[in-house]
């Protein structure tokens, strides 16, 4: 257990103490106890920069289940560190923010911080594990801590709905990813990512390669809310705003991106990887931004914006993966796309984090997030307004903020798509820059909506619950820090690029020489014109928004993905219920019909398929007259039971059959059996009479009607039993072990009655438990008669 492992699990450890601390120090906000940890971890991870920037990695291993190749291998490389810093850095800010956001008197802070810490630890585990199973473990943990956080206000219907939705979709992906991981293991014999990467070249031809690729991508796509799995993210906004800022924009949703980046060296040699990721990414980008515009809830806008931005990063990663296809020249081309992805990932965390916090402030101070109710807040909360401006402009890709830089790089990447000569990108690849541009226009629009509809325009105090005022300083610190980062990186991108991004890039595209220099000015290239076009058209459309908003009405409400999910879930449940009810009808007869039908079907099939019916008469004994007589008696007796209506007659006939059976035992040289059968039969008949004499006379309608199904099934059962008996008897291959008993019964067990000696000695163990059965039966009968808990006779018998 190294310090690194300790760092990863430290949030879990702290989480254990949170409820105790909460109980002990009720008047101190629990957040204060939590805050030191992420700060500490952040500074701890900062110290790794010096190592990773020289392209080294650190690996520490602790065995977990080595027997199946699962070890807790913690590995810090550029990519992992980038994420670790995001998690702990933003984590610190979010915790600080939450201290002011959540009231210590009204909220169940203990559970909140436990969830949050669980999440933090899980997320660290995801990005720092080199073992896929361990990674998967932490991955599922993020899903569940997210589930709990979304359902934090669990008495709200929508919270529960959102929690369930996010859990189902992300776990679906997780399981698929697990399948992919296992497939990878089958191909490579290891769960360790580094070892898989080392073997990557050898497995591309494996038929399991493509399935594994798809399975793992499904996991990434669901987690990162890629179209069409994005539907859980807007509903996840039911979580408290700090959570949304942390999980649902800055970190957890990026786990999918992390996974794609991490697995790029394994899969990128396959063209499918490139176009799947790029394609889904660009679709998500468009769909997210397009839908963000129509939203009226501030958090919903941010949610769709997150979806769209995640799509953008994803598509960049996809294109970047193409770098592994080409020689050095084109390499750097696509390497640049990857750089853009990583860069934007970071930028997105900063500006989106600050925007969420801003929205949280607005919500907190006005009591609503509905832009139809908000407006003119600029005068009441100037600092918040400033922060919002910085965040949204960066999101819209305006200079001089960091969003501008990554947006430019994004356009560059999209234009280069046309040069890609895999999967016919050169023909239909044109779609990429076009869609990217359109999506950027929408991005611009919703960014403007976000800031201007809230802070400018008409102030409508009558629609607000509270009188708005500027947020307390504590609440503003975190967004201010993030907004400053937006500006600083905007001006000095290369500090970040050299120290953090470049090592990350190295992990995604190993052994590639990529120029990580980010420059502000590229000259008059298509990218610049695209940006200008975005701004121009964006402003135009923003101003005319009310006029063309009806476009959205063209999309029928019944066909949305959400509807599909809801109805699908409902349909599955209803159909299951209906289906299960049809065959589980509570009638034992029906069940028996199923069981016997299966019995007949499967055994008949087996006999037929295996040619198992052998009939060999060489080994049989002679047929005696009396035996035939007895056989006839049994046959007649048992068949006539079927047709008699009187209970008494049926019971007597059963007794007759039983006595005949005991006569068979006499004829077949089994005196002990005959004795026992006789006595037992007598007692059974007596019991039958005792238990049934009180039944009332049968009514006519209850007469036994002949039923064809029953008849067919019974004949089938009888036939099968007979056929197997005949063939089993014809198959006597071995001698019975009975000779031993003949030899040893007297000498070793001092008895002459072999059957009895077997019963009390050789197989006395059977007998011991046979009488146990009897005793239990007696106990049961006694209790059944005497103890009546539910019935009307309750009082009589006490």
């Amino acid at each position, binding site marked *: 257990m190294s310090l690194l492992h300790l760092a990863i699990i430290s949030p879990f450890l702290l989480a254990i103490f949170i409820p105790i601390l909460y109980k002990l120090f009720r008047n101190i906000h629990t957040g204060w106890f939590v805050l030191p940890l992420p700060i500490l971890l952040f500074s701890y991870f900062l110290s790794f920069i010096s190592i990773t920037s020289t392209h080294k990695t650190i690996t520490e291993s602790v065995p977990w289940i080595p027997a199946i190749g699962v070890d807790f291998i913690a590995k810090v490389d550029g990519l992992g560190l980038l994420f670790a810093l995001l998690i702990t850095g933003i984590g610190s800010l979010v915790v600080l923010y939450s201290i002011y956001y959540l009231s210590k008197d009204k909220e169940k802070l203990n559970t909140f911080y436990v969830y949050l810490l669980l999440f933090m630890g899980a997320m660290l585990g995801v990005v720092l594990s080199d073992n896929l199973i361990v990674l998967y473990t932490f991955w599922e943990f993020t899903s569940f801590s997210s589930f709990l956080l979304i359902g934090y206000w669990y008495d709200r219907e929508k919270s529960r709905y959102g929690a369930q939705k996010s859990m189902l979709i992300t776990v679906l992906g997780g399981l698929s990813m697990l399948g992919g991981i296992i497939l990878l293991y089958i191909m490579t014999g290891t769960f360790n990512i580094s070892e898989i990467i080392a073997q990557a070249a050898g497995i591309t031809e494996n038929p399991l390669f493509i399935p594994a690729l798809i399975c793992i991508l499904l996991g990434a796509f669901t987690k990162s809310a890629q179209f069409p799995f994005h539907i859980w993210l807007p509903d996840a906004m039911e979580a408290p705003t700090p959570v949304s800022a942390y999980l649902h924009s800055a970190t957890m949703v990026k786990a999918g991106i992390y996974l794609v980046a991490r697995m790029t060296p394994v899969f990128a040699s396959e063209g499918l990887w490139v176009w799947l990721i790029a394609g889904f990414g660009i679709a998500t980008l468009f769909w997210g931004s397009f839908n963000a515009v129509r939203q009226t809830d501030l958090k919903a806008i941010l949610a769709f914006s997150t979806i769209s931005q995640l799509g953008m990063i994803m598509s960049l990663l996809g294109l970047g993966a193409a770098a592994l296809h080409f020689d050095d020249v084109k390499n750097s081309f696509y390497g640049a796309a990857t750089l853009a992805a990583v860069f934007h990932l970071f930028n997105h965390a900063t500006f989106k984090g600050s925007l969420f916090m801003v929205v949280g402030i607005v919500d907190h101070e006005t009591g609503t997030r509905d832009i139809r109710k908000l407006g003119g807040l600029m005068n009441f909360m100037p600092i918040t307004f400033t922060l919002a401006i910085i965040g949204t402009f960066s999101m819209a890709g305006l200079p001089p903020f960091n969003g501008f830089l990554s947006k430019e790089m994004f356009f560059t990447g999209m234009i280069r798509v046309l040069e890609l000569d895999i999967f016919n990108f050169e023909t239909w690849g044109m779609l990429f820059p076009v869609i990217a541009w359109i999506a950027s226009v929408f991005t611009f629009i919703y960014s403007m909506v976000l800031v201007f509809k809230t802070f400018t325009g008409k102030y409508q105090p009558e629609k607000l619950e509270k009188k708005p005022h500027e947020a307390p300083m504590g609440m503003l610190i975190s967004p201010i820090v993030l907004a400053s980062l937006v500006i600083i990186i905007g001006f000095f991108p290369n500090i970040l690029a050299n120290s953090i991004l470049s090592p990350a890039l190295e992990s995604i595209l190993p052994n590639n020489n990529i120029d990580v220099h980010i420059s502000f000015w590229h000259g008059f290239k298509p990218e610049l014109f695209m940006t200008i076009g975005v701004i121009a058209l964006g402003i135009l459309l923003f101003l005319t928004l009310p006029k063309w908003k009806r476009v959205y009405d063209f999309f029928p409400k019944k066909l949305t993905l959400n509807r599909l999910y809801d109805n699908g879930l409902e349909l599955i449940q209803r159909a299951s219920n209906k289906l299960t009810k049809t065959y589980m009808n509570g009638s034992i007869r029906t069940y028996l019909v199923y069981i016997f039908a299966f019995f007949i079907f499967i055994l008949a099939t087996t006999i037929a398929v295996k040619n198992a019916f052998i009939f060999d008469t060489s080994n049989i004994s002679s047929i005696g007259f009396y035996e035939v007589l007895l056989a006839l008696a049994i046959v007649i007796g048992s068949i006539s039971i079927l047709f008699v209506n009187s209970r008494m007659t049926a019971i007597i006939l059963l007794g007759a059959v039983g006595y005949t059976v005991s006569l068979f035992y006499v004829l077949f040289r089994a*005196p*002990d059996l*005959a*004795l*026992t059968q006789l*006595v*037992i039969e007598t*007692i059974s008949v007596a*019991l039958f009479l*005792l*238990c049934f004499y*009180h039944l009332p006379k049968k009514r006519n309608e209850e007469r036994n009607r002949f039923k064809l199904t029953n008849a067919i099934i019974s004949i089938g059962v009888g036939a099968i039993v007979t056929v197997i008996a005949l063939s089993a008897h014809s198959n006597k291959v071995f001698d019975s072990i009975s000779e031993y008993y003949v030899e040893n019964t007297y000498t070793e*067990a*001092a*008895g*002459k*009655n072999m*059957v*009895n*000696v077997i*019963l*009390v*000695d050789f197989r*006395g*163990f059977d*007998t*011991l438990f046979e*009488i*146990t059965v*009897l*005793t239990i*039966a*007696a*106990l049961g*009968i*006694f209790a059944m*008669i*005497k103890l009546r808990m539910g019935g009307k006779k309750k009082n009589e018998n006490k």
Partner: protein
Amino acid sequence: MKTNDLILQTTTKVVLFIIILFSFHIFFAGHYTPGGGFVGGLLTSGAIILLMLAFDMKTVSQILPVNYIYMAATGLLFAGGTAAGALFFNVPLLTHAFGHVDLPILGDTALHTATIFDLGVFLVVVGVTMTIIQTIGEDE
């Protein structure tokens, strides 16, 4: 209508002896001839049932004040104890021991732990049968 069952009751007293004698015979001879604890037990309970038929359950329970459930449990304890007795000698469970003893009247007799086991079976069978009969008989 009330009837007396004098004939039945008198016969029963005689027949009872025969049955019980026979059931003991069957029980003890089980190792050599057909029979054993099981049938013996059933016969003994048959005798008790006959008593119940000839007299009534209350009378019989006065003559034989036995809790049949305990009887069954005792039998089980006998059988289980014989089995578990092997534990003290560290031989496999249920290993029987036997020896021949010259008894004054019966002559050469095989003494057998299996007999104790069988006695357990006997008791269980009587206990169980009688529990069933008695419980149902007493109901309603």
